[in-house]
């Protein structure tokens, strides 16, 4: 019931907004559907807490601690982003960057995007997971090109083709997995793609095929995670699309793609004869961290800057999951949560700041603190949080990851520390003059939505100081599910 | 039975010598019909050869002995090749002498001598033709070898008669690898025998010619041998094609007069059809620029390798 509501809400939203998306009250309607989805997610979570794992809809949907926490996070950020988009999109319209028709497209696709992510998270069928991931790409392609500028079209094309190729590889990986599972689960083929069944027989699956499948899946979904050498689409798509889309791409889509990788990793790592997935993820993660932190230098575009920061953090998370074990997994899950909250909060402030300055170039954005103290402080605090300053949650998770790395991968620790230092210098050096310094910006016709920013940052702060026991319980359960190696 | 084999062997070589010019004549005749021209006599190549034998040879002053020797070498290799290729029967005494790979080597020898002789006198056309001939050869030979490899892999031997026998006696089926090889082989045949998309056998003194350019300095009996050699080459290629792709009708196993009685008409029929087919290809396709020839041969190579890969992958 809760699940039906959870998936029905954005579906209904997509249809309704497809008709009404251009109306004056459409942004509010969007927020209402977002809040509905969030409430449904909360109800679903409550049910999972009470009754444990759920298997619904002829085994096609499966809810466990791991995905229910991501479902809640997704629904929450989806909701707050719709709150942020309310004034943001109005300003964009008044600046003449988008038309009413495109606003309708935006609203409808936004809901559809939420739906595909929720389906990807909750489905038990690895084939449907693929379908939902592809649909997530498709629903956002036209959003990235919403402004129809040359740059946005290029970004959209890159996004489409790179993710299309990536996702095709993931399909091949899925086929291989099906092939391996079918040998064990029988040739009817109905159950062989269901994760719960796969999980039950994971030690019997053929190691060679499994290894091949995992490599394809890692490369395929890894493209969507934005791991380095496959990250090319990510900065462009983030920089050229409307800011709410940057926020959900960074905060949610990357998580969901990583979730897909982890689902397969947990099958893989339980099979002692198969290739260990850990080292693969560790090296891809480390590469992304190092690459992204050096790319942070010489950025001109503020959204691009934070897009690279997302690559860096996804690298950290992949690295931590690659190490495996309860502590690293716990830390990585915590990092997923706080990164998603902080990064979307940053994009919210960045969106408003860029609107005020009339440009996304960092050199044009100056003196936010005098113009709008809340936005200025929001950006400052958000940047400090994402850079891993105590007492924010990012500090806690990065600290845990680093200490685990010292024990498990001592060689990687200095590299990580250096990369984090470089990232710190790069981002802080750019943000500081934007927040302080002389202003040149204008007032906006609509008051910025600051509630989402500070809610996110407050949660991140709380998570840095104290992880509530039920949340910790979740994380531990999820960490256990993901497993080691 | 040794005698029967010996007889077949001699018969094959004699038949090749006799039939090669006729085959060439038949191709020319078909082409003429297809182009709505009055067809020349099928015996025309014979008359040419006879006429040339009766003339006095003129040889360039600076020609080396190699220039004189080349026609005999070329003609000789083609006759030997005709002896190896199982056009009528598969049990031949000469078979032990050379397998299919050596056969490719024989063709290469002939090519080297023709080219060397063409460069020997030092005329511009000769050198040009030789260079082009080598370019065609270095692309066509690997393709031909690949074609032979596919057939060898299927029949597990490199001896051409054994391959032919294996293919003739196995159960009928679809062999994509052989189909690809056949396409590749046809392309190689066209290029190697200076047929139309690559070269035009009917014209002289054209800047695009390959084969004819090399023969410009020859006259009389030397030219006759060269042309007869070229006709033999075409005949040989056709027979290799029959052996690999349409081996039915060839006398397999123990030889007897009965086998030959089937084999000779079968060969005649296949030759007639192949000649007509060749004429059709030559009529419908346009001569390519010389620079495109590598592309043409690359596709031949591609087909051959695809055939090989398909065989390895599908086992068919």
């Amino acid at each position: 019931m809760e699940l039906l509501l959870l998936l029905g809400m954005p579906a209904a939203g997509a249809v309704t907004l497809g008709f009404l998306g251009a109306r004056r009250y459409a942004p509010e309607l969007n927020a209402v559907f977002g809040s509905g989805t969030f409430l449904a997610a909360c109800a679903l979570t409550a049910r999972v807490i009470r009754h444990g794992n759920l298997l619904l809809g002829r085994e096609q949907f499966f809810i466990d601690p791991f995905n229910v926490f991501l479902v809640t996070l997704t629904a929450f950020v989806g909701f707050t982003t719709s709150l942020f988009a309310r004034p943001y999109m109005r300003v964009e319209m008044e600046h003449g960057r988008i038309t009413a028709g495109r606003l309708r497209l935006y609203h409808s696709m936004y809901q559809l995007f939420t739906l595909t992510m929720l389906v990807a998270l909750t489905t038990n069928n690895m084939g449907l997971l693929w379908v939902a991931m592809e649909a997530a790409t498709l629903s956002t392609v036209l959003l990235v090109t919403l402004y129809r500028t040359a740059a946005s079209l290029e970004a959209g094309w890159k996004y489409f083709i790179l993710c299309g190729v990536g996702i095709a590889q993931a399909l091949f990986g899925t086929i291989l997995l099906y092939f391996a599972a079918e040998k064990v689960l029988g040739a009817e083929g109905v159950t062989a793609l269901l994760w719960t069944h796969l999980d039950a027989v994971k030690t019997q699956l053929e190691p060679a095929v499994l290894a091949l499948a995992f490599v394809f899946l890692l490369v395929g979904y890894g493209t969507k995670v934005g791991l380095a050498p496959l990250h090319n689409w990510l900065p462009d798509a983030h920089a050229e699309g409307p800011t709410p889309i940057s926020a959900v791409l960074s905060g949610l889509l990357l998580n969901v793609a990583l979730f897909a990788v982890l689902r397969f990793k947990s099958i893989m790592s339980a099979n002692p004869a198969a290739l260990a997935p850990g080292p693969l993820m560790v090296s891809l993660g480390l590469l992304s961290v190092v690459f992204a932190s050096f790319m942070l230098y010489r950025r001109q575009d503020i959204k691009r800057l934070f897009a690279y920061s997302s690559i860096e953090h996804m690298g950290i998370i992949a690295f931590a999951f690659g190490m495996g074990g309860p502590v690293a997994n716990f830390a990585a899950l915590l990092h997923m949560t706080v990164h998603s909250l902080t990064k979307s909060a940053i994009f919210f402030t960045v969106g408003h700041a860029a609107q005020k300055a009339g440009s996304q170039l960092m050199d044009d954005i100056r003196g936010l603190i005098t113009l709008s103290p809340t936005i200025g402080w929001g950006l400052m605090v958000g940047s400090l949080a994402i850079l891993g300053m105590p007492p924010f949650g990012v500090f806690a998770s990065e600290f845990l990851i680093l200490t685990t790395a010292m024990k498990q991968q001592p060689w990687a620790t200095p590299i990580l520390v250096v990369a984090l230092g470089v990232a710190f210098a790069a981002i802080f050096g750019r943000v500081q003059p934007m927040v302080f310094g002389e202003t040149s910006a204008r007032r906006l016709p609509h008051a910025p939505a600051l509630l989402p920013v500070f809610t996110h940052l407050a949660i991140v702060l709380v998570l840095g100081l104290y992880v509530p026991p039920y949340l910790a319980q979740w994380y531990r359960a999820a960490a256990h599910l993901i497993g080691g190696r | 039975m040794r005698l029967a084999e010996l007889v077949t062997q001699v018969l094959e070589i004699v038949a090749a010598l006799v039939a090669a010019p006729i085959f060439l004549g038949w191709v020319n005749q078909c082409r003429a019909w297809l182009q709505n021209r009055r067809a020349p006599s099928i015996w025309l190549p014979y008359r040419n050869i006879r006429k040339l034998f009766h003339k006095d040879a003129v040889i360039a002053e600076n020609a080396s002995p190699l220039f004189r020797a080349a026609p005999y070498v070329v003609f000789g290799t083609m006759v030997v090749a005709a002896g190896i290729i199982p056009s009528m029967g598969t049990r031949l005494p000469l078979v032990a002498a050379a397998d299919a790979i050596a056969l490719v080597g024989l063709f290469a020898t002939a090519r080297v001598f023709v080219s060397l002789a063409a460069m020997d006198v030092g005329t511009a056309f000769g050198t040009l033709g030789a260079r082009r001939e080598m370019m065609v050869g270095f692309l066509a030979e690997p393709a031909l070898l690949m074609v032979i490899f596919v057939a060898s892999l299927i029949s597990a031997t490199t001896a051409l008669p054994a391959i032919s026998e294996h293919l003739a006696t196995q159960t009928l089926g679809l062999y994509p690898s052989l189909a690809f090889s056949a396409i590749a082989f046809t392309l190689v045949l066209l290029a190697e025998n200076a047929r139309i998309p690559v070269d035009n056998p009917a014209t002289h003194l054209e800047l695009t010619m390959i084969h004819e350019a090399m023969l410009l300095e020859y006259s009389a009996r030397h030219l006759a041998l060269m042309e007869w050699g070229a006709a033999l080459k075409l005949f040989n290629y056709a027979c290799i094609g029959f052996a690999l792709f349409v081996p039915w009708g060839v006398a397999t196993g123990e030889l007897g007069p009965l086998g030959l009685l089937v084999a000779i008409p079968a060969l005649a029929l296949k030759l007639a059809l192949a000649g007509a087919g060749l004429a059709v290809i030559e009529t419908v396709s346009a001569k390519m620029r010389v620079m495109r020839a590598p592309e043409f041969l690359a596709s031949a190579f591609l087909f051959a390798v695809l055939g090989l890969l398909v065989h390895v992958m599908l086992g068919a």
Partner: protein
Amino acid sequence: MAHTTFDLQLLNACAALLLLLSFAMLSQRRVVTLVNLLAVQGGLLAVATLLLAWRTGQHHLYFSAALTVALKAAFLPWLLHRLIRRLEVYWDTEPLLNISGTMLMGLLIVVFAFGLAQPITQLASTTTRSAIGIAVSVILLAFLMMITRRKAMSQVVGFLSMENGLFFGAMSATYGMPMVVELGVALDVLVAMLVLGVFFFQIREQFDSLDLHHLESLKEHD
């Protein structure tokens, strides 16, 4: 090999032709022909599915074959032809690598694909397992085509050809995926093409050409 039945031989012939088609696409410069080749590929895929359905008696494969014909052999090529006419993109004259070089690379890729498919082929119990290598080759060749082409239209054809290869792989390794997944994939492909259609018009509107040359301004050092 002499003992294989005729329908299996036909399937093998289909596989071989699919491989040949991949190379034909790789060498083709005319966009219209490229789309026609894609349609033929879809048709062949449907024939192979039909043969397999008949051979194994799995009913969902009949359905799958019908879907393939409708979508991949008919609708998508029709859509692409329409787009080509409307957008007037007929030639992809400047591949990044010359044709012979691409072909040679293609051959190497087939060898590589064969090696890659070897472990799967050995484990598969289907009668069509030998075609897995071909399916992997088709996928990788389509990938090569996407890399070496400049025009958006050729890249899309490459993308669809890759999808076809994936289907063929799924079929020859496991007699097809569960129906719900296949439907989902087909739906995604369909939507992807519709999105692309819209997208092409946007590009066209902006640049007056579908050449990806124009889409190279977003460098890393912006």
